Every structure is written in structure tokens, then in C-alpha cells.
């Protein structure tokens, strides 16, 4: 069936197929790596006409795909209409059980999309990958993207439509909404309000435009707990209008981060991490990162110089640097001489790298600091090279807490009869003092559209279950503006509605369906008709990207005077300590608190799981007489919470950092009562930090579930790092010589050179930022169970891939080095010869294989593993798995039972799939990626065939920085490391 070849399905044949000129093959992805090949370095560039699809595509075959995505629509009696399903007349030959299909889609967080590719097996998505064609993530994906799959299959998702406890059918709902809408027509929707999540979706924007034409006086308010309000405000100060600031780190040599954690959690952090990591190898190209921050962040841990200061002090530091750069009139010396010197040195370093430096301010810093950053970049001539400005991408330029206040006022005044909430859980996350819960109860028709029942749904008279993005049609924009089409990969698992359908309902077009809305909108926008559009449309779906939609750069004029004026605003003064709030690396602002993978994901710095301790520095803890794990009462402006404290090395003194998103009072067992609710202390004006915190030591000790208790390397050669200078002078080289090369042994080594494949891995500590993407990717790919806080505390965490983190130097201000550790696949594996039943043995290609169904569980292998990468199923971790969650399991990987040992397999299932496809194609495996490698935004993990001398991994294992972990044991590991190189500024030594 020639037509099948043009399905907008990404068929992973496991071997690259260069794009031939034949149009028939353009639109289908032969495989991910093909795109790798095309996209690397040239993100977002498209061969002319690449987006087109040849005309011979038949409508029927297209509907077949829709059929695939809407297969269960028949059941969805209470759902928005699905497209008509056309059953297969003849099964397409591609559709074999176990055959993987790949669909391009996108996932937005606070409005900014990541381009994804979902791998579906037997009609169900089983793995999330980054879309290699997508400019903002270039094939990488974050822990949050990966974990979205667990949310999809969460049996505790909201289901159905409810009004005052009564279930409504979709039609019934439409009828009710129609009534409401018509009632609001009278006064132009004066008493109609929408509280939406920050969003950049062109479709939703269009729907809102039409809504506001029908209800001119309706309120549209966008809000989310952790948004870039300050950045927008800062831009407004500096340029008089909102603009988005984009960093281009490839040309950047010196980076100054003012409390900006741009390597994690930021809308573009995947791309930034990749560009940053690319220049962490020794040489002229190597960049240097200064970070000024309080609590240690992923970015801070990656810094060459981490300038420890309270959040409120960052502004002062920024002013000083700006002054030295001449970006701010009137230099002012900082009282702390060391910091003053740092400011001079940093300024000098920046100045030496005009046009090749970057100053970026953190979203948690006040607008003035952002304005200063803009001024400095302008003064350094970075604009256009390392800094690019565009128009804001978000629909609402400033989603802000002020919106909430306004809404609250309106509700108070009884000006809101109908409120549609699509924003996430405002009752829980709203600023303290603003008792939104009580207010929502006052609204006659509060319609809450959410993926889960939570604190807010209990207060709203209407509950509308939201479809998961992987179940919905839609579109989204990345931070650079590029549009991705969001296509469903599976029909909604539960009765649910997607946002577009909800808005459409108020336009009385609810029964049209999101797909039709979307397609009509884009057809209108493309100005094409019939076949021509159809072809273009399918090209977009295939690549998950609408070309040419990135925002063009614009050059706003800097208003230096305004910046100077803003910069003069005094730093907040006050008695007592300082409280700093931060989004969690696991649960973000709390919306992922129901996601067990993310709850059990160790914090990149402190390795704490299932918790948000109140972090403070050792000195401060001592001064307050607080011991690690001791519960303390944090009081700010009369509000207080009980939180266990934990000492974080390198934390600023007189400051306490608390992560948002924990201590939920509602939601699933996964989120309820885990950690403490930091929102209790969060007020609108001091959204991120506030002075005047009282800390009273309390009774009781709390045991944190930590995956790595020991901080020091004990002087052992484990995670090695060197300064660029000493490295340049060849120091470290001989130190590494002792950590690699052959080890004398009585056992003649097995010769693998005759094999076709000799699998190996290389991990670059210089690139790794410890962002955890690989950890979740591994968990998802390999069906790794979650064990819960209690078991983690007992030391039974199951992660096959962990990121060890060591601190070196003074505890007050240490250096950090992270080291991903998975099974090293030793050629002389100590685990193997001690197994009495031959349950772990070597494959001819040198994999250290674990034979689950042979394992009797003596655990001897684990005792004898020097890397302690083996994980034992001490209990039946899963128990009865709900039917829907069984769909989550990767069918290619055994689900291990109780009493069985398990560990990293180098994703042997991927190797075997590649092998099969290669055999079918009659050639050798030319490309296979491990799950961790595929997710890694820093390209720190490289896996491949060591017998192929041309392969990247083979080259990296010859690298001067290569060394083996615990080399002197003679285990001859297949996984090798590249030593981390730091690039400190000699003037700051």
C-alpha cells in the first residue's frame, strides 16, 4: 500500500535512512536517528519543501491514523465528538503487535512547549522522547516530560463532568453551558470570568478572541504559581514594553547568572543545557560560569564560581557589577570586601568578552535585577550575539498574581456569576491571605477544568475532567515561538474534555471537536485549500512542528535612565532571617506532586526524595541550635509552618530555602501530606523571597528519605575534576593514567574484537549537570518500580541509574561534582562468578546480563558489586497493578517480581530491536541509543559500539579525559568516564 508510507507516523526502523529525493519518503520518519543526523547543530532548519507531503496521500489512509488515535472513541459517550472512525479495511502491514510507532506531539509547561515524540506500542504510548527536529529541546527531554506518561495512566485522574455532585453527559454539559452563555450575552459577559493557565496556543488564543467578541466584557485572567512576572516587568522597565529574552550560549564565553537557574526548570533549559555543555570541554572554546545564588541549584553546581549570597543581596551585587561595567552611573562598593572584589573580577571578565558574554537574571529576582541584566548585556554588546529579544510568546504577556487579586476582588463584589478555571489548582497555590477557596464557593457557577480532583475542585460547583495532552488535539508554542501541533496518541482513557472543547462550548461549538477547530484554524492561517493544505498539515503532524513560526528577533531600545532609576530601589530590609522559595526539581510548583516518579526523584543537590526540607547553611543551623532533621517553626508575617530543617552545603547564611509544591491537603496518596506547604508563607508582593523570617527550634526529629547520605568522596579517585589551567599544563593527565589502561591479571581477557558489536558507554562529567532527565527516562524505559519514602529511607531505592553527588572543599562553600552511575558492565564482572545459579552472566558482546527468571535472590552479586548498582526486589513493590497502569509498562522489558535482583542492562531491549530491524534490512546495527542517552540534554551520556572505531563512544574512550571508575580493582568496566574540567578565573582564586 504505497499510501501507508505517507502516514504521519514515525516508523522506527532502527537504522538510518538518509532522506532520499523521493517525495514518498520525505514525510515519514524512518527513525529518530535520521532526524538526529539532520537536526544536530542545525536545529529548526528545514530543507525547502520538507514540510510538504506528496499529493498521493489518500484521505482514507489519513483517517486511518485518526482511527488509531480515536480507537476507543465509541466508548466515550460523554465526551466531545471524536472524528468519524474508519476501521481498517485491511490491516496496514506496519501494524504488527509489538511494532513501535512514533508520533510527534508537544507538551507545554506554563505555556512553553517541548517538542516530543511518543513511542506507541500496540496503540498505547509507552515512552516519551524529545523531538530531534524541535529547536528548543533538539531531541532531549526533561524529567517532567518523561514523567508525563505516568500522569496519563494515573488511575486517580479526574473522570467525567460533574455539576454540584451530579454527573453530566457531554451533551447535557453543552446544553447547560449554552444556557449559561446565553444568560451572559445580556451584559456582554460582565459577570463571566476565565482564570486560565499561561498559554501560547494559537488555537486557544483564537478561541479566546472569539469569546471576547461574543462577551466583550468578560474577564480573562491568566495565572500560575511560578511564572516569570518579574522578567516581564523588568523588560517593561528596560524597554518600555514586554519582550522575551533568549540566550544563545554557543558563542558565549563568560556567563553571569544572577540567581538564574537557567539549566533546569527554565522554559528553554534543555536547549541552554545543550549549548552550555557543548563548551565545557577544555580549550579556547570553553565557557566560564559565575552564579550568584542562595541555595545551591543545578546551575550553581555547574558553575565555575558560585557566589553565595542571600536572594536580597543579588540586586546589590548586580548593581556593583553593572557599575563596574559602566552600565550604571555611580559605582558603589559592596560592604563585603570579598564580594566587592568578586564583582570587580566578574565585571572585568565580562568586559574582556564583549559580545561573547551573557548576564541573565533569575525569574525569582525582582524586576530591577532583570532590568540591570538587560542594561549590562546592552553595555557588553551581547544583544544580537548571545542575547536575542523577541515579542512575548505567551498569550497574556504578564500572567501575574495581580490577576488573582483582581479576580478575588471581583468575586467579593459579586461581579462573577460564572467562572471557568483552567489554571492549575489556584486554591492550593494562591498567595497566602487570599482565601480563594471560600471565594470560589461563593461563585454560582465555578467550572473547574483539571486533570485531577484537588483542593480547588472541592470548592467549585462544577468539575470538568481534563484530557491529558497525550489524549488531545491542540497546538502549543515553544519559548522561541515555534508552533508544535499536539496530536493525540491514545483516545481519552476517562471521560474528559480538553481545554479547546471547553472554550468552544461557550461559543456553542462544543460539538465540533478540537480536531476540527484546530484544523480549520490552521487551514485558515495557511490560506491553502484541499489537497495542498492536507499535504502541508500532514507534514506538520509528521514533524510535530510548524516551520517558520519562531518569533523573529526584534531590537528594543534600552531606556538606561529607567533602569538606573529602578536599580536605585533599595533592597528589602528587615529583622530576622530571609525566606527564599523555589520551585521543586521534582514536583515543580506542586502540579507533579501526584506523580510518584517525580516524588521519588532525588533532589539533584541534596538527594532528598518525597520531601521538601527547610534548607539552611551549617553556620546558620548552628547559630539557631538546629540539628539536621529537627522540626522547626518558620514564622513570616504572622503565618507559620512546621518544617524539618536540613543543612545544605553551600547555602547562603541567614537564609532558609523552602521548595514549593509539597504538603498538599488533597490529591492522591502520593501527594497528600508529603512535605510542608510553602505556599502558607507566600504572599503576592514577596512571591519568592522575604526578609523577617523567624525560626524557632521545635520538638521532634524527621527522617528524610535520602538516596545518598554521605557527602564526601573520602579522598578517593571517583568523580575526578581538574582546573582548566592545570589541565592545560598537563597536570591531571598522569593522575588519569593511573585510572585507566590494562590491569595485570591471571585471567586472560576474553577477546571481543572479533564480535560485530562491543557495547560501551561514556559519561562526560564535564557536561553532566545532574538534571535527572536520564534517571526518569531509565525508570520509564525499564519499568522500574517506585518504592515510597519509607523504603527509600531504608536504602531500597530501585533506580538503575543514579547520579552520585559529592562535595569537596569547605562545607560552607563547597565545590560540587555529580557522577551518573549505572551498571558499568565490567568485562571481569565481580557479580558474576559469585552467583551460584548463573543468573548473571556475560553475553558474547560483553553485556553483563541479568537472567531474572533464573535469579533465586542470594544478593551475593550485589554485595560483590563495588559500584553497588544492583537493585533487589525486597518486597513485591507493585502489588495489584490497576488495569490502566499495566498499559504503562514497556512491553519489551520484563516486569520483575519479588526476590529478584535487577540492574541496568544498557537497554538491551533497544539493542535487540535495532538488531532485528538491521537483520531485516540486511545490514549491521548502525545506530542505537540507550534511554538515558536519548533524554540527556547535555549529551553527556554516549552509548555505542566500541568495535566501530568511527563511533563517537569509541572516540570518547580514547579521550585524554577518559578514566575508569575504581580502575585498580581490575573490573575493566565498559562504562567509562570523562573527567570534569572546571574553568575558574585565576583572578578569583
Amino acid at each position, binding site marked *: 500500500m504505497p499510501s501507508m508510507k505517507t502516514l504521519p507516523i514515525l516508523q522506527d526502523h532502527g537504522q538510518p535512512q538518509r532522506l532520499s529525493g523521493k517525495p514518498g519518503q520525505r514525510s515519514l520518519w524512518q527513525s529518530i536517528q535520521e532526524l538526529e543526523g539532520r537536526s544536530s547543530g542545525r536545529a529548526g532548519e528545514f530543507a525547502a519543501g520538507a514540510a510538504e507531503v506528496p499529493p498521493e496521500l489518500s484521505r482514507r489512509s489519513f483517517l486511518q491514523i485518526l482511527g488509531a488515535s480515536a480507537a476507543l472513541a465509541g466508548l466515550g459517550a460523554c465526551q466531545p465528538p471524536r472524528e468519524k472512525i474508519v476501521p481498517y479495511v485491511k490491516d496496514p502491514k506496519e501494524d504488527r503487535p509489538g511494532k513501535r510507532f512514533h508520533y510527534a506531539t508537544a507538551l507545554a509547561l506554563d505555556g512553553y512547549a517541548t517538542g516530543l515524540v511518543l513511542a506507541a506500542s500496540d496503540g498505547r504510548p509507552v515512552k516519551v522522547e524529545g523531538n530531534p527536529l524541535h529547536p528548543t529541546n533538539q531531541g532531549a527531554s526533561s524529567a517532567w516530560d518523561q514523567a508525563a506518561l505516568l500522569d496519563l495512566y494515573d488511575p486517580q485522574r479526574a473522570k467525567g463532568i460533574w455539576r454540584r455532585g451530579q454527573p453530566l453527559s457531554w451533551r447535557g454539559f453543552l446544553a447547560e453551558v449554552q444556557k449559561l452563555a446565553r444568560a451572559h450575552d445580556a451584559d456582554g459577559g460582565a459577570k463571566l470570568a476565565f482564570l486560565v493557565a499561561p498559554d501560547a496556543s494559537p488555537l486557544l488564543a483564537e478561541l479566546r478572541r472569539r469569546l471576547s467578541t461574543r462577551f466583550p466584557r468578560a474577564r480573562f485572567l491568566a495565572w500560575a504559581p511560578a511564572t516569570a512576572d518579574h522578567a516581564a516587568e523588568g523588560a517593561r522597565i528596560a524597554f518600555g514594553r514586554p519582550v522575551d529574552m533568549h540566550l544563545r550560549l554557543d558563542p558565549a564565553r563568560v556567563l553571569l547568572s544572577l540567581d538564574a537557574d537557567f539549566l533546569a526548570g527554565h522554559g528553554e533549559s534543555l536547549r541552554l543545557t545543550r549549548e552550555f555543555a557543548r563548551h565545557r570541554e577544555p580549550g579556547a572554546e570553553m565557557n566560564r560560569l559565575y552564579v550568584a545564588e542562595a541555595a545551591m541549584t543545578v546551575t550553581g553546581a555547574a558553575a565555575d564560581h558560585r557566589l553565595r549570597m542571600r536572594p536580597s543581596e543579588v540586586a546589590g551585587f548586580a548593581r556593583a557589577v553593572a557599575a563596574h561595567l559602566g552600565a550604571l552611573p555611580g559605582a558603589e562598593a559592596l560592604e563585603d570586601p570579598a564580594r566587592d572584589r568578586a564583582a570587580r573580577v566578574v565585571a572585568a571578565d565580562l568586559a574582556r568578552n564583549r559580545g561573547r558574554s551573557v548576564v541573565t537574571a533569575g525569574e525569582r529576582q525582582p524586576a530591577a535585577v532583570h532590568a540591570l541584566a538587560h542594561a549590562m548585556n546592552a553595555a557588553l554588546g551581547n544583544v544580537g550575539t548571545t542575547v536575542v529579544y523577541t515579542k512575548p510568546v505567551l498569550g497574556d504577556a504578564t500572567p501575574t498574581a495581580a490577576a488573582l487579586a483582581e479576580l478575588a476582588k471581583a468575586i467579593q463584589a459579586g461581579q462573577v456569576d460564572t467562572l471557568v478555571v483552567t489554571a492549575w489548582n489556584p486554591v492550593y497555590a494562591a498567595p497566602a491571605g487570599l482565601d480563594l477557596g471560600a471565594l470560589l464557593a461563593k461563585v454560582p457557577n465555578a467550572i473547574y477544568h483539571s486533570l485531577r480532583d484537588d483542593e480547588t475542585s472541592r470548592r467549585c460547583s462544577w468539575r470538568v475532567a481534563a484530557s491529558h495532552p497525550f489524549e488531545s488535539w491542540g497546538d502549543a508554542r515553544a519559548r522561541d515561538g515555534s508552533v508544535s501541533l499536539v496530536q493525540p496518541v491514545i483516545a481519552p482513557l476517562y471521560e474528559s474534555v480538553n481545554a479547546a472543547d471547553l472554550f468552544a462550548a461557550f461559543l456553542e461549538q462544543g460539538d465540533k471537536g478540537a480536531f476540527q477547530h484546530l484544523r480549520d484554524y490552521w487551514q485558515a492561517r495557511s490560506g491553502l485549500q484541499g489537497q495542498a493544505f492536507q499535504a502541508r498539515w500532514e507534514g506538520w503532524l509528521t514533524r510535530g512542528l510548524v516551520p517558520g513560526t519562531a518569533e523573529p528577533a526584534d531590537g528594543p531600545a534600552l531606556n538606561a535612565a529607567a533602569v538606573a532609576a529602578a536599580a536605585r530601589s533599595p533592597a528589602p530590609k528587615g529583622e530576622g532571617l530571609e525566606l527564599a522559595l523555589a520551585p521543586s526539581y521534582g514536583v515543580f510548583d506542586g502540579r507533579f506532586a501526584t506523580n510518584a516518579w517525580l516524588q521519588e526523584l532525588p533532589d539533584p543537590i541534596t538527594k532528598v526524595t518525597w520531601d521538601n526540607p527547610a534548607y539552611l547553611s551549617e553556620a546558620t543551623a548552628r547559630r539557631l541550635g538546629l540539628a539536621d532533621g529537627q522540626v522547626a517553626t518558620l514564622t513570616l508575617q504572622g503565618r507559620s509552618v512546621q518544617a524539618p530543617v536540613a543543612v545544605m552545603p553551600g547555602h547562603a547564611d541567614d537564609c532558609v530555602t523552602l521548595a514549593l509544591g509539597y504538603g498538599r491537603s488533597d490529591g492522591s496518596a502520593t501527594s497528600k501530606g508529603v512535605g510542608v506547604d510553602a505556599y502558607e508563607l507566600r504572599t503576592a508582593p514577596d512571591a519568592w523571597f522575604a526578609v523577617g523570617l523567624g525560626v524557632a527550634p521545635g520538638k521532634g526529629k524527621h527522617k528524610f528519605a535520602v538516596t545518598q547520605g554521605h557527602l564526601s568522596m573520602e579522598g578517593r579517585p571517583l568523580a575526578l575534576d581538574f582546573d582548566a589551567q592545570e589541565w592545560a599544563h598537563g597536570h591531571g593527565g598522569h593522575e588519569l593514567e593511573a585510572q585507566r589502561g590494562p590491569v595485570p591479571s591471571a585471567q586472560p581477557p576474553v577477546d571481543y574484537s572479533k564480535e560485530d558489536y562491543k557495547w560501551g558507554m561514556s559519561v562526560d562529567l564535564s557536561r553532566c549537570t545532574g538534571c535527572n532527565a536520564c534517571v526518569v527516562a531509565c525508570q520509564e524505559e525499564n519499568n522500574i518500580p517506585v518504592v515510597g519514602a519509607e523504603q527509600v529511607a531504608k536504602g531500597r531505592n530501585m533506580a538503575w541509574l543514579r547520579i552520585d553527588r559529592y562535595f569537596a572543599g569547605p562545607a560552607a562553600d563547597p565545590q560540587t561534582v555529580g557522577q551518573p552511575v549505572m551498571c558499568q558492565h565490567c568485562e571481569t564482572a565481580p557479580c558474576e562468578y559469585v552467583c551460584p545459579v548463573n543468573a548473571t552472566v556475560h553475553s558474547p558482546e560483553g553485556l553483563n546480563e541479568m537472567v531474572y527468571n533464573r535469579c533465586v535472590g542470594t544478593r551475593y552479586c550485589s554485595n*560483590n558489586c*563495588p559500584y553497588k548498582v544492583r*537493585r*533487589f526486589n525486597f518486597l513485591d513493590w507493585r502489588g495489584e497493578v490497576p488495569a490502566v497502569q499495566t498499559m504503562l509498562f514497556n512491553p519489551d522489558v520484563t516486569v520483575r517480581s519479588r*526476590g529478584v535482583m535487577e540492574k541496568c542492562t544498557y537497554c538491551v531491549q533497544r539493542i535487540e530491536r535495532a538488531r532485528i530491524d538491521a537483520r531485516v534490512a540486511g545490514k549491521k546495527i548502525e545506530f542505537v541509543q540507550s534511554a538515558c542517552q536519548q533524554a540527556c540534554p547535555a549529551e553527556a551520556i554516549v552509548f555505542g559500539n566500541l568495535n566501530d572505531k568511527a563511533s563517537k563512544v569509541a572516540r570518547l574512550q580514547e579521550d585524554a579525559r577518559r578514566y575508569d571508575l*575504581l580502575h585498580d580493582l581490575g573490573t575493566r568496566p565498559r562504562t567509562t568516564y570523562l573527567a570534569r574540567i572546571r574553568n575558574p578565573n585565576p583572578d578569583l582564586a
Partner: protein
Amino acid sequence: MTPPAASAVHRDPLAETPLILGHPSDLQVNDALLKPILDPNRGWKVLAGLAAAGTGLLVLGITVTLARGIGMWGNNQPVGWGYGIINFVWWIGIGHAGTLISAILLLFQQKWRTSINRFAEAMTIFAVMQAGLFPLIHTGRPWLAIYWLFPYPNTMGIWPNFKSPLIWDVFAVSTYFTISLLFWFIGLIPDLAALRDSATSRVQRMAYGVFALGWRGSARHWHHYKIAYLILAALSTPLVLSVHSIVSFDFAVSQLPGWHTTIFPPYFVAGAVLSGFAMVLTLMIPTRKAFRFENLVTERHLENMAKVMLVTSMIVSYGYLLENFMAWYGGSAYEAHLFFKTRLTGPYAPIYFMMIAFNVLVPQTFWWKRARTSLTWLFIASILVNVGMWAERFVIIVVSLHRDFLPSSWGMFFPTWVDWSIYIGTISFFSLLFLLFLRFVPSVAISEVKELNHEMRHGQAGTGGHA
């Protein structure tokens, strides 16, 4: 009638104490030794009841473990082996005295063994039974472990890995148990016959008749019997040494600091003998009092055992010493860290020092005759030594595991109630078996005592034992 008590006998202080006090006739010996069986005393029921109750804990612990999994124990990453293996090694060690006393002392013609060997052999068998439990349950899925460890043809066509010390264990422990049992039973046959013929009730005659297999003391049988017993002894002697050497391989063969140590085999064997003799004393001192065996199990027996403990304790101490020397001399940073930092200052340091105190210092008191002859001190010391030996296994297993190569994976081990109930349960089960033994089986080798008695009466230079 019982023979006169030791105190009643006047003897020359220079001459060594005779092994049997007074000059009982064979009949007297016979009656004295069979009395506990033919008319038991009250206390037995009470003790047996306690032991049975404790055994309930064992059943509970094992049930929970098999139902829920090893997660009910304290084991974790990195401490993959906890109480399970500690107790295994501990019990196996205790199980060494019996065969050693019987076999080695027999070969060396140490006559004093005759009064205690039966006792010690029984203890061996019961101890090995306890030990045997642990390798089975510590996988949490014994229904696999039980047979997958044995080389039997299967559809997968896969075989055990004979490079693994655990497989050696399987063979060593099962062999040791079998041989000890045979050795014990063969030694028991003549006494069972004596029991059969001394018994008055028909039931007892029948019962013991069955186990005596028809022994009637025929010279033609004694003829084969003696040589068979001697050869079994000759086989058991190296067997005893091999078993704990192989158990020590479980550790020595691995590459973990604190395990990877060449001194282990001799030092394990010595430790085993030390704990074995300690356990014999712990059991013998009350028993001889309760059963009035004072004139058969004399102070000289106890004193000799004390001497053996002193010697083995010195060997063990040497082991400790050499371990530390090698840690320093070998120059491995990881090993040095374990021996000079983790053990001495780590969270489990108290257990390490307890081990030193009980295994090295306590036996040193046996340089003094007063210590060797004071029943109270012997009893206390024997218990302390066994606590010390348990601590030694804890130090070797848990302390070595909880802090190995990568500090990132360091962790702590805390036992759970299941760990404790299984441990206490095995002790109870052991006691129960032992009480049953005392109640229903001659706890002293009667025929041997008679032979010895005979020799002493006729002053012939007998060879001791049956040889």
C-alpha cells in the same frame, strides 16, 4: 544408687584427676547414665515448654518472611546480607565442637572426650540444623533456592555455577550434616541397645529396639564397628576443617574490603572451635549439675575445654591482628579505611570492641587455674564468648558492607523484629531439640565410658574410644 560424689574421694593432688571418679561398676555407670531417660525429673517439662514457645517465634518469623519477602528484614542496599548470614555462620561455627571433639580427640586418643563427645555431637547436629535454615530462607523464595542450587537436569539445560562459593557451601554443609549425623548415630547404636535392654516398659523396649537396629554387642559386629567408627572419625576431622574454611570462602573469595582476606579459613575454623567449645560448656555445666554427672564429666573435662578455648582464642586473636597488618601492609586505601576508620570509629564501633573484649580478652583469664575451674566463671565466659563470636560475624558482614568503595552508596543496617524473632527462634529451636535429646537419648557414650571404666579397673593402657 549413684556413685559417691567427687568430694568424697581422697586423691593425691599431684596425680591428675581421674576421668571417672569413684569406682562404679558397669551396672552403676549404666543406671547413672540412663536415669535421666528412665526416670526423668520435673524441671525438664518447664524448660521444654519455654523452648517450644520460643520456637513459635521462629515459625512466625519464617512465615512472615516467606509471605512478604526479605523486605521484612533489615537488609538493604548496600547491606545485602544481614542477620540471615550472620546467624548461619554463627550456628555453623557452633556446630564445629562436636565433630571436632569426637573425631580429632578420638584420633589423638584423648580419653577425656568419652564423657562429652555424644553430648557435643548432638549439639553439632542441632546447630547445623539451625544453620541450614538460613541459606534457605534468606533468599525469600526458598522454593527456588532449595533445588536450583543443586545440579539437576532441567529443561533450561542450565547448571549451577561451580565457581561460586555458595555452591561449595551447599555441598559442604549438606555433607557435614550427613556425616555428623551418621557419626553420631553409629556411636549411638550400642547405647540404644543398652537402653532397650535396661528399659522396663514394653513401649520403650520397642521404641529403642527399633533404633538399636538389632545391636546385641556381638564381637563380630564390634569387629567392623570399631574400624568403621575410626575411619568416620578420620574423615570427619578434615571435614570439620573444610566446612568452615569453605564458609569463609563466601567472604574471602569476594573483593570487598574486610572480606577479601587470605587469613580467613584458619581464622574461621579457630573461631568456630572457640564458639563450639563455648557452647558445649554453656550446655554441659547445667546439665551435669541437673543429671548429677559430676563424677563422669569431671572438672578436668571442663578445664580441658577451657584450655582449648584459650588456644583457639589466641589463634582468632592472631587472625584479627593479621587482618589489620595486611590492611596496613597491603596499602589498599579502601581496606585501610575499613579497618582503621570504619571499624574503629564508625557507627558500629561498639560491636567491634565488644568482639575484641569477648573473643580476645575474656579467654585470656583461662591462663589461671582458678578461672578454669570456677564453674560460674566458665559458664559466664562461655556465654560471653558466643556473644563475641556473633559480634565477629556482624563486624565481618554488616560493617564491611555498609561502607564499601563508593561513599555514595554507604548506608546503615537496622534489624527488624522479624530478624530478632528468627534469631531467638533458632536459639529456642536448638534448645528444644537439645532437651528432647537429653530426655530420650543417652547423652553420654555409655559403652565408651564402660570401656574406659573397664580399662581403668584393669589398669591396662587402653587406647580410649573404640580403637
